[in-house]
């Protein structure tokens, strides 16, 4: 099954879904169709990932492209849940935009599907560690979208009273999963290499990302009124998250890291 075909199906589902959602009024058939198309797109990704898992005979969590797939899945799912559960209508469009962006990255940088998995990755920790991180990244990505919307509203002098609250909740849960990911990584490292922490650049940057979201949580607790500054902090935090996830390969310290993605 070619990824390009699946990607086209997903893109078509989502874009048409978005159009229906935007045009449809509350409770209309158009809106229902929009929701169904959006959900269908998410379903298509899920099916593709299941297929990939079976075909590769290993969890599709090893390469950067594979983690991006999970990110697209979790982010679009999060968008759907936030739309359905918290009635955040705009979130579905924002998460769709970001998901499509990451999906396009995979289309532009096609994977060389390699079925090998080095011995260090053959561990019970592999799947939980990466999945938990991708879920955290998706939630924190959603919180970044909230910050973008908030800053946009503040620049155009409109109020954004509810947004900080939503961002806070997303960050809390995202941060909790970030904690799981960091600690699972440490426990795995102990099993594989004998040391739970070795200041590998990936570990260090994961810690930095964790700390900056920690900073945000404390800042929000202390200065709940300084919402604009908090949103800028959220943007900075997401930049550091992306550096940690994808930028390690480009840093000078990359050559000494065992975490650089293969192929």
């Amino acid at each position: 099954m070619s990824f390009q075909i699946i990607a086209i199906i997903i893109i078509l589902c989502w874009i048409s879904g978005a159009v229906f959602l935007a045009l449809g009024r509350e409770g209309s058939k158009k809106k229902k169709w929009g929701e169904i198309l959006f959900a269908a797109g998410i379903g298509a990704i899920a099916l593709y990932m299941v297929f990939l898992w079976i075909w590769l005979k290993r969890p599709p969590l090893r390469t950067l492209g594979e983690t991006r797939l999970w990110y697209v899945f979790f982010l679009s799912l999060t968008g759907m849940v936030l739309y359905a559960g918290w009635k955040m209508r705009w979130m579905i469009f924002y998460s769709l935009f970001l998901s499509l962006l990451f999906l396009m990255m995979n289309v532009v940088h096609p994977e060389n599907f390699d079925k090998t998995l080095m011995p260090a990755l053959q561990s019970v920790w592999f799947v939980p560690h990466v999945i938990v991180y991708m879920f955290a990244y998706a939630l924190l990505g959603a919180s970044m979208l909230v910050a973008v919307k908030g800053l946009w509203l503040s620049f155009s002098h409109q109020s954004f009273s509810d947004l900080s609250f939503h961002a806070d909740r997303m960050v809390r849960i995202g941060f909790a999963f970030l904690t799981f990911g960091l600690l699972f990584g440490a426990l795995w490292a102990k099993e594989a290499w004998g040391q739970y922490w070795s200041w590998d650049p990936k570990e260090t940057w994961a810690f930095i990302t964790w700390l900056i979201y920690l900073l945000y949580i404390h800042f929000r607790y202390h200065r709940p009124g300084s919402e604009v500054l908090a949103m800028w902090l959220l943007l900075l935090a997401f930049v550091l998250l992306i550096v940690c996830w994808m930028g390690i390969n480009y840093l000078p310290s990359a050559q000494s890291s065992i975490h650089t993605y293969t192929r």
Partner: protein
Amino acid sequence: MNSRQQLYQGKQLFGYRYSFLIFFLIILAGFGIEYAGGGRGITAPLFPFNAIIVVELLLFLPLAYYLYRHRKLVQWLTSIPAANASIALYAMLLLIGGTIPAEPYPSSSFIHRAGLDHLFHSWPYFLSSLQLIIILGLTVVKRIFPFTFRNLGFFLNHFGLWMVIVSASLGAGDMQKAVCYLYENHPVSMGVDQRMNPVQLPFSLMLKKFSIEEYHPEIILIDRQKATAYIPWRHPFVAGEEKDSVREFRGHRFVQLQYYPYALYKDSLYVACDTFGAVAAVCLLIDGHRKEWISSGNALHPPRMCVLDSNYFVALTVPKAKKYTSVITCLGKNKSYDFLLQVNKPVTIRGWTLYQSGYDEQKGKWSDLSIIELIRDPWLPVVYAGIIMLLAGAVMLILLTPRSRDKNVSSRVQGQCDEQLNQS
């Protein structure tokens, strides 16, 4: 001025600017100390001194809090601006450490003298961690009473982090690492540490057998101009798979005729032969009429490639390791027993945990060497306790996520101030 106004003043007096400045100056002083010491760095003390320090911290921090909780210093240290400033500066140090390559610089260079090539064992990092330890410790004591569910979550997260930082930093002094080179049938009871010092082990190890399972190699192209690998196929062209199916590239067609995981070159072709020095070899049919043998090669035999055209060679990759296992005999005083050692499946003997680290990659499948890493980390249970607390704290963070927004934000802040006044 009543006490509430005084408290507000206290909060503003020691705000972010003040906190950042003080902590930044302390870290700067750390760089100064490091530089003055010629970049020697700082290492954790050994037992019992590290344990004594932990006990002192556990006694000193609660005592300091209860005796001096009305003083401005303690109120500042347990305030959020202080916490945020020290977190931010700690993160900035990590940023430096996570960007600069980990290779050692010459001892006379500025980078080495300032501690930048060994940042995590340097004075600025030590002082920054100390800031966190003191602030975290005092804050935990502040919120330990009353015993509410909410405070439990706070306690798990903050004390868990405190435990991890303290035990990981101080326990590092007691951690012992040794590498053992086990050759088949040669008992060994000593390893070598990172400084090439011998480390005596309380047992003897002997490698009985080393075995490795490999993935099948792949057929790839080599760019003749750039001398780099070039893979034109989305799905790897794995040796031994897809017999009779045709792969195409720029008008050329490839079919696998034969694959031997272990073969030797004889009389212009490869013969299956599972002996020492054998290589993986594939016979390809190119463009329907050319029969070519390619092989991965190893330390004894060079790889064999074939010319495709003026731009590319066809080559076979070296098979990647899938799983490697050592069967090791542990020789104790009275008895001996065998065990298996694999990556991700360490074995613990007498306080030492053994990890399968490597093997003789030149000999590959016929390696008679197994490289074992042995680690002794007596502080590990304490670190694990901290990690478990942090995991539980993260779960509580999810469970205690507020469902609905507070109607009046300022009343919440007011409530906190009242709470603090009632406690003091």
